[in-house]
């Protein structure tokens, strides 16, 4: 049994003719796991998170968090989860501390307990020094950290983060990803959405790939990559004798299929490192020169391309 379980979720806005944003999505997240929903803009990630936060009622299906239905036991679900929205949902004219105190009160905390917890969270998001400055004076990364801090106040067991690294510098992104790994190590269950393949790959124990409201593939990174096979893609161009090389290369050890398109040759190879020298050698022997070469190890990008025929990035 997962800590978070989505069972055939479906959401249509403004039925009967509106957009079907989520169309029969099911998945389960174990306690203490980082689970990422990966998909391009408009895939339905935010809608799924909203349903799991009891902000949107599913048109069909249900989901459980810690055994509580998001449709029928919203209050119990809300106390278990912390939700970090995609937008910076804070009060820009208040300081980080004033924001945290206000949101703490909204979670029902008061007095000394509230103050203690605000101090702890400021420590967690590393903003103790600048806690009294107005949020609108902060950098993008600092704002994002306060946005996350608010969701930690009531010590939730699960944390949802909706694209928390959009629009910030690499260093701040690194800090946020490290913090998320740390939360997981302390036992939190994490649901993360992103359209950055690299983030999903680095962070997640398991990944669900979404497109057009559907879950098109799900599993660990290794499992997903196996969908496109374990071969690396080598793409190259030569200055002459293309035909001859097209006949020679398939006979080499470790080379799978070879195809050419617009003067560019694509080879599937088992192990790029050991095969590349032979490619150069044979080319030279045929009196040709490799003018351009790139190697793509199998990754989620390729999985998405393989499953949808489109690139993950717009």
């Amino acid at each position: 049994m997962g800590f978070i379980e989505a069972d055939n979720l479906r959401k249509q806005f403004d039925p009967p003719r509106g957009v079907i944003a989520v169309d029969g999505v099911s998945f389960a997240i174990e306690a203490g796991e980082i689970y990422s929903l990966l998909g391009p803009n408009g895939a339905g990630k935010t809608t799924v998170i909203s349903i799991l936060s009891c902000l949107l009622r599913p048109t069909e299906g249900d989901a459980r968090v810690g055994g509580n239905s998001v449709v029928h036991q919203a209050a119990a679900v809300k106390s278990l989860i912390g939700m970090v929205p995609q937008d910076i949902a804070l009060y820009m004219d208040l300081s980080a501390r004033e924001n945290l105190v206000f949101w703490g009160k909204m979670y029902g905390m008061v007095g000394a307990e509230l103050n203690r917890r605000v101090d702890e969270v400021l420590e967690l998001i590393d903003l103790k020094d600048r806690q009294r400055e107005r949020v609108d004076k902060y950098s993008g990364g600092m704002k994002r950290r306060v946005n996350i801090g608010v969701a930690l106040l009531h010590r939730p067991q699960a944390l949802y983060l909706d694209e928390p690294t959009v629009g910030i510098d690499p260093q701040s992104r690194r800090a946020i990803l490290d913090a998320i790994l740390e939360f997981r190590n302390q036992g939190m269950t994490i649901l993360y959405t992103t359209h950055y393949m690299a983030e999903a790959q680095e962070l997640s124990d398991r990944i669900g790939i979404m497109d057009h409201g559907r879950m098109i593939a799900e599993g660990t990174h290794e499992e997903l990559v196996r969908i496109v096979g374990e071969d690396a893609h080598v793409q190259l161009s030569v200055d002459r004798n293309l035909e001859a090389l097209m006949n020679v290369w398939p006979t080499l050890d470790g080379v799978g299929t070879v195809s050419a398109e617009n003067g560019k040759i694509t080879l599937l190879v088992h192990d790029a490192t050991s095969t590349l020298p032979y490619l150069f050698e044979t080319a030279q022997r045929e009196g040709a020169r490799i003018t351009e070469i790139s190697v793509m190890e199998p990754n989620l990008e390729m999985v998405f391309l393989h499953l949808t025929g489109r690139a993950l990035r717009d």
Partner: protein
Amino acid sequence: MRWICALIQKDLLQTYRDKLSLLFTFLLPVVFTMFFGFLFGGVEGSSLPVAVVNQDPSGGTAAQLLKILENSDVVMLVQYDAKEAERAVADNRVAAALIIPRGFSSNTSSQETTSVNIVRNPESSGGRTACSAVRQAVGRVNGGRLAAQTALAALFPGIDPTDDPQRWSRALNAANAAMAKPALSIDLQSSGARAGEIPRGFDMSSPGMLINWILFGLLGSAITMVIERQNGALRRLLTTRVRPWQIIAGKGGAMITMTLAQQVVLIGLGQFAFGVHYLRSPGALALTMITLSVMSAALGLMLATLLRSEAALIAALVIVSMVLAALGGAWFPLEVTGPTFAAIGHLSPAAWVLDALRAIILRGWSVGQILPYLGAAWGYTVVFLGIALWRFRFE
């Protein structure tokens, strides 16, 4: 309640940070109250200023006449010298000028007829009113003298009543004392405003500008609400333990608190700095203030609900408050516009609250008497609140 208080506290803190909305809430209304107050003439409430040129400063009769006029609430006496007085009348700075000639008192002690001079602008209704007030006072002085003369003539026939000054002054005092408690009196019950009928000076501008600027008291909260909805904070509140109705109540509460604070400041200034008699009927005043705040908050909630951007909201607040206030008689009295416009003006909720405030200031009406006006305002409140709740969206 704890949740609502925390929400109100947060909004007030944000409003306090927003210096611009504080400017609109407190400073501009005071400036405009002064401006319109002077524009509508008369620094002193609703009594008519009358210039007095007393060329008989030591005379007893002159003193008696001035004493009677000072006690009148129709006119207010301002000392001038002869030249200045006429100019003041010509410039409409005073309603009329009363000139008491040299030797006025000693002449009246003898049997000769003497007179005071009144200078007034024949077109001004205030001048007529001031004239009749002076005439009334002169009438009382004359009445006292006639009574004393008649009594002494009856008791001591053939002797000039002023021959024995001591006896004369005793008789005169007795007659004047009797005149102060007349056997026959007129109770004047006016249905409109007192005296000059139309509120003047600060009696006009103070409540008018209060109404005109009241919506700006909730500007901070309303802007916050639009931004909260835009950046998702309103929606995020729904992931906490606070309930939707508490969020709306917190917003309304913050708006009511701010507008009440604004009213306390502006009414306090009106009462103590501008001499407007708000405190004549404290119960009615309190009820009117609450009515005005709740109605404004309902209107503010409605606007912040319907409008989706900060710029649109500010524009709407400015336009709505100016139109409602102008239509409702906050800038100029509806009485001067004739019955048709006055009726149209009462389509504005501001007109009803203004009626209540003026009834308190000018006539000291009680809670029971202003209830019909406030009832109309509550009717509008229900409509505004209904629309706000119906259209309210968290995102």
